[in-house]
């Protein structure tokens, strides 16, 4: 049984989706419990895989028993296993959280929401585990199609936003496909390790075909991860989506694409082929532009969701910039930031949803005295805010530490300055929110005599939304304090991949 662990967390959501479709036609209330059960099961399986990988090294699972390079392999090393665990955690917490919003907004057809949700999880989990480039395309499209539908279930504007996302996203995925085609054209294989092997032994990296392939792959992935200037679809799509969809996709979709980018950089091309090329010179500047743009736009937003989407754009800039500094340290930093940022984005979306549910808060200006009304949620929110600014001992501080270290190590000072400016911008954004949340917009009229009258306003979010918020905020702090095991796992994996060891 355990030898099939790598596929359990892939297939459990998949089968659960089918079961829910059928069971839901009979009884609608079964959707939520089945979804949560399936995701819990896959979380266990993902953790088991992570432990196995941590002890024994990469796990190879051949789908259907066909071996590479003809069969499709799941090659799960520490990076994939960590991503798988991350995905299941995000999905499980979002699923738990989704009970209230889905029932109130979609209601009757909620049993159709969860299958899409679970299929999306299947898609992204598969992306993180597959070692076949074309299979990756298929799974990208699986997750993308479900995401178009998940987004379109929201407010009225979401349909149009989803349509634009569909156009741009499919464009990006097709460019990716084209890139894979160029790679196939030159090497004749689709398996990632085999690609690396063939390209290295035949010294194909300098050929125009392979270089153009890299360009196509990267542009396609940048479109999908919303790297500036291809980010246009992101703000609208995530602003109008239903809150569980935004909470599910915000942390995952873009970060999984960053994972794919890193995977291609280290496993398929290899750091040696990339370093000292035009890429490492110019892409960090693109990333810097993204960081600055995202931070400035976030500063100017009033509407909470939209502000978070621009923060996502800026954070993607951090990751892309670090990754394309192309040193082992920088890729470690970028990957740790993937995990850290996914958790922070999830926490933001969950807290914002909690605030919306009870007090119909959509914009910053609605947040007066929110600390009195929803103290527990705001504690969670404050922790996330501090993490985004980079206050120790949260995970945001640790990722800033590593990102700045990577910048100093590579000597790329503009990148470091951009990071610091973005931290500062985040501080301005969130302390402005704190000011409104604690003080209210209008100045207080002198000293208040009692504190007890504020208790009337206390109206916390329902438990199903509150618990995930707290769990995530706690994990942000824990990930920060206990970051060593993760960092070690990540950096050992990256060194062993880049060490020239030709893996099967």
């Amino acid at each position, binding site marked *: 049984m355990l030898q099939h662990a790598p596929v359990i967390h892939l297939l459990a959501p998949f089968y659960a989706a089918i079961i829910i479709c059928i069971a839901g036609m009979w009884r609608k209330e079964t959707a939520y419990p089945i979804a949560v059960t399936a995701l819990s099961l896959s979380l266990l399986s993902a953790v088991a895989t992570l432990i196995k990988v941590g002890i024994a090294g990469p796990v*190879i699972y*051949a*789908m*259907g*028993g*066909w*071996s*590479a*390079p*003809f*069969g*499709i392999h799941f090659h799960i090393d520490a990076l994939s296993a960590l991503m798988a665990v991350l995905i299941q955690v995000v999905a499980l917490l979002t699923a738990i959280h989704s009970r209230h919003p889905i029932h109130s*907004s*979609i*209601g009757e057809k909620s049993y159709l929401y969860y299958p899409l949700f679970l299929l999306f999880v299947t898609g992204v989990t598969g992306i993180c585990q597959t070692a076949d480039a*074309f*299979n990756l*395309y*298929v799974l990208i*499209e699986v997750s993308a*199609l479900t995401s*178009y*539908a998940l987004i*379109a*279930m929201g*407010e*009225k*504007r979401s*349909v*149009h936003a*989803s*349509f634009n996302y*569909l*156009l741009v996203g*499919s*464009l990006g995925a*097709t460019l990716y*496909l*084209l890139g894979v*085609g160029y790679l*196939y*054209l*030159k*090497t*004749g*294989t689709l398996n990632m*390790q*085999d690609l690396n*092997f063939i390209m290295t032994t035949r010294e194909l990296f300098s050929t125009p075909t392979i270089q153009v392939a890299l360009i196509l792959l990267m542009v396609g992935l940048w479109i999908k991860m919303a790297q500036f200037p291809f980010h246009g679809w992101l703000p609208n799509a995530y602003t*109008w989506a239903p809150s569980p969809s935004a909470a599910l996709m915000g942390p995952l979709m873009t970060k999984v694409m960053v994972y794919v980018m890193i995977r291609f950089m280290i496993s398929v091309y290899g750091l040696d082929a990339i370093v000292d090329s035009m890429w490492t010179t110019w892409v960090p500047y693109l990333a810097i532009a993204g960081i600055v743009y995202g931070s400035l736009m976030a500063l100017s937003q*009033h*509407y909470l969701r*939209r502000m978070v989407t621009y923060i996502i754009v800026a954070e993607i800039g951090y990751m892309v910039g670090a990754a394309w500094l192309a040193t082992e340290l920088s890729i470690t930093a970028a990957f740790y930031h993937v995990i850290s940022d996914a958790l922070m984005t999830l926490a933001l979306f969950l807290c914002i949803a909690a605030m919306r549910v009870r007090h119909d808060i*959509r*914009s910053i200006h609605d947040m007066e005295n929110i600390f009195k009304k929803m103290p527990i949620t705001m504690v969670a929110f404050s922790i996330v805010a501090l993490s985004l600014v980079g206050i120790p001992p949260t995970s945001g501080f640790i990722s800033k530490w590593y990102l700045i270290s990577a910048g100093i190590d590579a000597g790329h000072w503009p990148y470091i300055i951009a990071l610091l400016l973005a931290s500062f911008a985040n501080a301005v954004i969130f302390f402005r929110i704190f000011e409104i949340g604690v003080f209210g917009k209008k100045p207080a009229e002198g000293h208040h005599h009692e504190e007890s009258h504020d208790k009337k306003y206390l109206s916390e979010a329902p438990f199903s939304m509150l618990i995930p918020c707290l769990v995530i905020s706690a994990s942000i702090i824990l990930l920060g304090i206990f970051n060593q095991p993760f960092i070690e796992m990540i950096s050992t994996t990256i060194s062993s991949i880049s060490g020239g060891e*030709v*893996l*099967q």
Partner: protein
Amino acid sequence: MDLQTLLVSKLNYWIFVILMIVGIWAIMSKNNLIKKIMGLAIFQAAVILFYVSLASKEHGTDIPIYPHDLIHPEHHGEVDHHVEEDSAKAHGAYEKHETAHHEEEHVKHSDDHDAHAEKDAHHDTHGDHQEAAHGVAHHDAHAPIADSINADDFNNPLPHVLMLTAIVVGVATLGVGLSLIQRVYRIYGSIEENEILEAIQNASDDGLTLQPEEEAAAQQE
């Protein structure tokens, strides 16, 4: 190379590039949502055509289902050795990885055709049951048939297989896109982009980027 060779020998590339550009142009500049989707479809079709064009060879035919009808005994001896060598090189990396289900696949690399590799694979996602010549070898490890077939005679089936998947994906995307367009029409009463944007602008006070619409919390149909 001179212009004529450039155009003719790379014809498939030219076609797909032009189609791609047409598709992207349609997505960006057309107002009507359906035309945008058509542009996307054209773009995807271009990529599919490109892949399929990679697969064809001069005088190549499709791989028949029962290849042992075509076995030419005289090729057996020399090709055997050549194939063994190649497979050893190609699988150098894979030697560590022997599972219980290890199949013997033979790979012949032909360097003349832009390093096309001849691989006959059962693609899991596709579920295609087309048995390649080598496929039969799975069940008969003693008499590999691969060495008796000349790869140059047959079109590469792998890109075809991949593109069947891609076509399915494209159709699904088209379906989602069209249903979204239908929804958009129901909400805004138009499928022209400029009219939709106007409707959005009218509904919210400050234009596109700020406040949500008042009816945002309404039940979805």
